[in-house]
C-alpha cells in the first residue's frame, strides 16, 4: 500500500456521480419484535469512493439503519419493507448464515463501532481478532497472517505494529484501539465501510487523527463509506454527501455543501441553528422538544410537533422523500415554498 494521496479532495466531488453505486437502500423499514417500527422509509445510496454521512439526533434511527444493512439487527429485529442492494444484489432478507456464506459479513462490508474499548474482545489479542478478518481473504499460515497483520497495523499508523499484534485491547490507548478496530474492519478488504460514530468516544485531537485516517484509507482503497454521526463538524470534515434522519426516516439528502450551507428541510435548518457558533454571548436558537420514541410516533409529518413552519396539514399527511423544484431531495409538505424562504 502506498502513502495517501495529498490532494484527493478536489477530485471527489466532481467524479463521484459517475462511479458505480455500492449500496442502495430504498424505502427500508425495520421493526423490533414485529411491532416497534424504529425505522420506516430509509432511502440512501453510496457510490464507490464516496463518503455518505448519516446525521440526526439521538434515537433517530441511524444505528438501526446501518445495522440493518449489515444484518446485525439482533434479536427480534427485521427488515419488513423496502430493499437493500449491495452492488445491485438484494440482501435485505438474507439470514446471518447466508450473509456469511455470501461473504457479506466481514468480507464485503466492514464495520467500525462507536466505542473501541467495547468493540474489541478484551480477552483476545489484536492479532487474533485481526486474523479472524484476514482469514476471510483466504489467507492462512501463521507467518503469512502475521506479516499481513503487521502491514495493516502499520498502515493505520500504530507504533510498533509487529508488537501490537500481541497486545490485548486494554494495553492500547483509546485512539490506538480505534486504529486497530479500523485495521480489523479493513483487513478483509471490504468494498463498503460502515462507521457508526467512530470518534464520539475520543478526544478532539485523537478524533482528528482517526477521521483523517479513515478518510485517507477510504480514498486509497476506493471504499464506499457510510459514516454515522451527530456532529456537524464531522460531517463537514468528512462527508461528500449527507442524509439527515429524523424519527426513523431520512428527511433530507444532499451534498455536504448543500446541507450545511443551504439546508432546506426545517429540521436540518433547526438542527444547524442549535449548534453553538462560538460567538461569545450569542443566544442559541434552540430546537424545542426531543426526538419522538418509536412507540409514539406523531401522525403525518413526524417532525410537525417541533416544526416552526408546520401547517395544519402536516398533522395528517405524510410527506414523501422527493426532489423539490430546485432539485433538493427532502421530505416536507412545504418543500417548494420553504426552500427559497430560508435559502
Amino acid at each position, binding site marked *: 500500500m502506498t502513502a495517501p494521496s495529498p490532494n484527493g479532495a478536489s477530485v471527489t466531488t466532481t467524479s463521484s456521480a459517475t462511479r458505480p453505486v455500492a449500496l442502495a437502500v430504498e424505502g427500508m423499514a425495520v421493526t423490533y419484535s414485529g411491532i416497534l417500527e424504529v425505522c420506516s422509509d430509509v432511502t440512501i445510496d453510496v457510490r464507490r469512493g464516496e463518503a455518505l454521512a448519516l446525521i440526526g439526533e*439521538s*434515537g433517530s434511527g441511524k444505528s438501526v439503519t446501518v445495522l440493518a444493512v449489515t444484518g446485525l439487527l439482533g434479536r427480534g429485529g427485521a427488515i419488513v419493507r423496502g430493499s437493500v442492494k449491495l452492488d445491485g444484489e438484494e440482501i435485505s432478507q438474507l439470514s446471518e448464515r447466508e450473509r456469511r456464506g455470501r461473504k457479506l459479513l466481514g468480507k464485503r462490508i466492514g464495520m467500525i463501532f462507536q466505542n473501541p474499548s467495547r468493540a474489541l474482545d478484551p480477552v483476545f489479542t489484536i492479532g487474533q481478532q485481526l486474523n479472524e478478518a484476514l482469514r476471510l481473504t483466504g489467507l492462512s499460515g501463521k507467518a503469512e497472517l502475521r506479516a499481513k497483520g503487521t502491514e495493516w497495523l502499520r498502515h493505520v499508523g500504530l507504533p510498533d505494529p509487529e508488537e501490537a499484534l500481541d497486545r490485548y485491547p486494554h494495553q492500547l490507548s483509546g485512539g490506538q484501539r480505534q486504529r486497530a478496530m479500523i485495521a480489523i474492519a479493513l483487513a478483509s478488504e471490504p468494498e463498503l465501510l460502515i462507521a457508526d*460514530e467512530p470518534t464520539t468516544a475520543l478526544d478532539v485531537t485523537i478524533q482528528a487523527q482517526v477521521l483523517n485516517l479513515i478518510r485517507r484509507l477510504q480514498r486509497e482503497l476506493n471504499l464506499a463509506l457510510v459514516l454515522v454521526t*451527530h456532529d456537524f463538524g464531522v460531517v463537514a470534515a468528512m462527508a461528500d454527501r449527507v442524509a439527515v434522519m429524523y424519527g426513523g426516516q431520512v428527511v433530507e439528502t444532499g451534498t455536504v455543501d448543500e446541507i450545511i450551507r443551504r439546508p432546506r428541510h426545517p429540521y436540518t435548518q433547526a438542527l444547524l441553528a442549535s449548534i453553538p457558533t462560538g460567538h461569545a454571548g450569542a443566544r442559541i436558537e434552540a430546537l424545542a422538544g*426531543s*426526538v*419522538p420514541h418509536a412507540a409514539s410516533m406523531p401522525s403525518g409529518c413526524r417532525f410537525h410537533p417541533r416544526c416552526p413552519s408546520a401547517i395544519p396539514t402536516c398533522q395528517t399527511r405524510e410527506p414523501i422523500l422527493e426532489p423539490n423544484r430546485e432539485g433538493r431531495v427532502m421530505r416536507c409538505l412545504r418543500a417548494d415554498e420553504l426552500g427559497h424562504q430560508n435559502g
Partner: protein
Amino acid sequence: MSSLIQVRETAPERRTSRTLAIFKALVKDPIGCTALIILTVVLALAILAPFVAQFDPLVQNRRAILQPPSLTHWFGTDDIGRDVFSRVLYGTQISLLVGLMVVVITMIIGGLIGMISGYFGGWVDMIIQRIVEALDTLPSLVLSLFIAAMLGPSVRNVIIAVTLAQIPRFVRVVRSETMKIRGHDFIAASRVIGASPLRIMLTHGVPNLMPTMLVLGSLAFGIAIMTEAALSFLGVGTPPPNPSLGTMLSQGTRFIGQAPWLIIFPGLMLTISVLALNLIGDALRDVLDPRNR
C-alpha cells in the same frame, strides 16, 4: 450516546406504595406469580397447621405405627405412630421460622457490616474483610456444624449457627454493592448538598441495596432451611420431639426400604419451600432491576 427515552405518561407513583408496587410487579411476572402462589400455599399450610392438621404432631398413636399413607393419615405415620402430615406441616413451620430468623438477622448484621465496610473503606474495611475471609474459609456446613456442636442442639442455636455461616456472604456482596453505589454521581451530588454519611447511607444506600439484599435474602432463606435440615439430620439441629423437616428425614432414614413416605414427604416439602424461595429470588431480581421498570 445513550438513547433518550420519552416521558412515559404513567400514573404518578408514590414512595409509600413501593412495596405494593413490587408486589404487583411480582404478581405480573410469571415466575414471581408461580413462586408467590407456592410460597403462599406453603406458608398458609405452615401457619394454619393447627387448623389444617387433624392430628397433634407430637402425640403418639401407639396403635398405628408406620402406617402407609391413607385417608386418615395422608402422609402415613412414623415409627411411634405420629401423623407425618401434621409433622410435615409443623416441621415446615419450624423450618420457615429458622429461615426467617436467619435471614432477618443476617440482613441486619451482615448488611450493616457490609455497608460500613464498603462505605468507609480503609482499615475498618480491611479488618472486616480479613475476618470475613477467615470465616469464609470453612465450608458453611462445617462451620455451622461446629458452632451447633459447641452450643448444643436447639432451635435457637441452629439459628445462631446458620446465621454465622451466612453472614460472610452478605457482608461481601453488600460491601461490593455499596462500593458500586458509592461511586455513583448521585451519592456525590448528595454529599455536595450537605447530607451526612449516615443520612446518605440510610436514604440512598439502603434503598439501592434493597434489591440485592432481598434477592440475597430469599436465596439465603432457602440455604438456611437446607442447612437447618442438614444440621438436624446430623443430630445437632432441632431437638426432638419437635418435627423439623431435617429431623424427620434423619429419623426416616432408618426405614428407607419399608417406609419411604417418611423420607419422601418431608423432603418434598423441603424442596418445594426452597424452590419457592429461589423462584422469588429470581423474580425479585428481575422486578427490582430499575432497568426493567
